[in-house]
């Protein structure tokens, strides 16, 4: 944006805020320096662009249509423009300072620091000594799909994207009514209603490939009242470790495994035997295979088979 344009826009904001009655485009052209030199059509185009730019940074411009006038009038209503008076107690300022640092380096970092700047400009004392405190909070939003999905959630717009389910060899297009985004264990999920499956679903953002397209008009998505986003993403309470494996462990090796096991029987042949709780034999097999020739799963047979399968796979 050129300096001249910034000046014109600032003058336009002041002009529209200062006026008591709405001003016609022509009156604005006379009052705001920077417009006067242009022809009618050029002025109209310029004025349209300027209004759009002001609206984009959140400035509410009222368009007033008076039945007695041919042309609409414009003004900015002070009440909808201004940050309401807000004062924070010291403890409130400390909390806000802690909250403001959460998004540093993430997609919403600019929004958070913009908010903080406005509050400070409004005379709110915010606590900036937080970085040195005993607690630091960060959220990251590395997934390329995050900004588009955030916008869609905010604007309540339907989205369409290509998605690869876990372990799947192919990518499918999904059309989803976005209800919200959830961060769980360092990963972001979209929770919403999958139009194709006709059911609520959660999607991991890192498995979305390519661009997220918005479909339809803003405001067209209805979030069901009382929907529990966390529950849609969370596993229904991690199941208790229901089964027990018996594993032979080389003497002196696999300290971690020993610490996590429920029982250790010291053997005499250079191998000890441990018992370990588990639920999913494949997960257990992944871990045991990674320990190589230091362990041997004795029981149960399905876990033993799964380890053998993995090791044979690594041979190929």
């Amino acid at each position, binding site marked *: 944006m050129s300096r001249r344009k910034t000046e014109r826009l600032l003058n336009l904001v002041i*002009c529209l805020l200062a006026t008591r009655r709405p001003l016609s485009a022509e009156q604005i052209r006379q009052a705001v320096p920077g417009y006067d030199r242009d022809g009618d059509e050029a002025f109209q185009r310029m004025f349209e662009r300027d209004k759009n730019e002001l609206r984009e*940074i959140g400035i509410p411009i009222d368009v007033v249509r008076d039945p007695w006038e041919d042309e609409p009038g414009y003004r900015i209503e002070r009440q909808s423009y201004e940050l309401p008076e807000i004062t924070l107690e010291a403890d409130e300022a400390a909390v806000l300072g802690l909250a*403001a640092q959460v998004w*540093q380096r993430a997609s*919403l970092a600019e929004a958070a620091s913009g908010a903080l700047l406005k509050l400070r400009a409004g*005379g709110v004392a915010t606590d900036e000594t937080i970085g040195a405190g005993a607690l630091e909070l960060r959220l990251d939003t590395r997934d390329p799909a995050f900004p588009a999905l955030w916008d869609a959630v905010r604007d309540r717009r339907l989205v369409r994207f290509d998605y690869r389910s876990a372990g799947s*060899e192919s990518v499918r297009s999904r059309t989803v009514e976005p209800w919200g985004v959830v961060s769980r264990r360092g990963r972001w999920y979209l929770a919403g209603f999958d139009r194709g499956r006709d059911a609520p679903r959660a999607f991991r953002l890192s498995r979305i490939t390519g661009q997220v397209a918005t479909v339809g008009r803003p405001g067209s998505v209805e979030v069901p009242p009382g929907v529990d986003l966390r529950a849609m993403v969370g596993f229904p309470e991690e199941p208790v470790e229901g089964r027990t494996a018996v594993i032979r462990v080389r003497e002196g090796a696999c300290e971690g495994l020993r610490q996590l096991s429920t029982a250790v029987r010291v053997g005499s042949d250079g191998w000890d035997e441990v018992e370990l709780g588990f639920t999913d034999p494949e997960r257990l097999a992944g871990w045991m295979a990674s320990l190589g020739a230091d362990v041997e799963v004795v029981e149960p047979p399905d876990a033993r088979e799964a380890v053998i399968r993995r090791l044979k796979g690594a041979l190929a």
Partner: protein
Amino acid sequence: MSGSADRLPRLLALVPYLMSHPGAQLGEVAGVFGLSEKQLIDDLQLVWMCGLPGHTPGDLIDVSWDGGEILIDNADTIARPLRLGIDEASALLVALRMLAAMPELAEVPGDALPRVVAKLERAAGEGAAAVSSQVAVDVDATPDALLRVREGLTRRRRLSLRYYVPGRDEVTPREVDPMRLVVVDGRTYLECWCYRAEAMRLFRLDRMLGVEVLEVAADPPAEAEPIDVAQGVFRPSPTDELVELEVTAAGRWVAEYYPCEEVTELGEGRLRVALRARDEDWLLKLALRLGDTGRVLSPPAMAERVRQEAERALSRYAHRT
């Protein structure tokens, strides 16, 4: 916030800031707005050219910065900042809700949290409150370790940890001087000076198998500087060897789980990934875990090592099956 596209919003915050901080110093204001003093003076000169229609000297905004002290007058029309946008308000509201969801972590005084949320929601209007309730952040609960770690932090006591490192399948005893808690992407870490590593370390609370508060005052050495977690917690060292793997659709979790320097789609869900390996043992463990869902491309010698280790492991099964 020094790009020219951001200039108008900045000026609309700068003027109210100067109105509410009369006599502020150039250097201080430049710092708040992330500008150099030269850029700030340029902004002030621009503001000085603007004002009410008519644009006679009496209509224009009056700014002076004699002796570095900024005074502003005749700017009543834009004396208040612009109200918070939906993104701005919701960024703060989401973070505040996250704090509210972890009371045992964030020792927030009294009812300050709900009070701030209420004030912000009032300042931002309905839209922002609705959006922020559509974002949820889950924080891992680790009550046992947390209780003792917190005690160590508040009483400034040295801690004795038993810490599990899954990549090596090791549990190591460590004595540490706790410095602060860091919550990144929903996981809680203790930032501390580790006497075993003789360096600053971040330890995940859910991997602490035991925490003991020692009756020794925490006394981290002078070189114990906070770790910059802005780049993420899991940062492989650039001196670690760059290795390459090819994984099938079932092995794609590798690319999601570890920070990769390069990820190439090979079709049918297969990927080639380049990542920094801490050491060869770590890479060997990963390759064995992957089984037929992944293989090491580079270093080429690694493929043979994986094969040998798998063979050795299988021989144990052969004699009993």
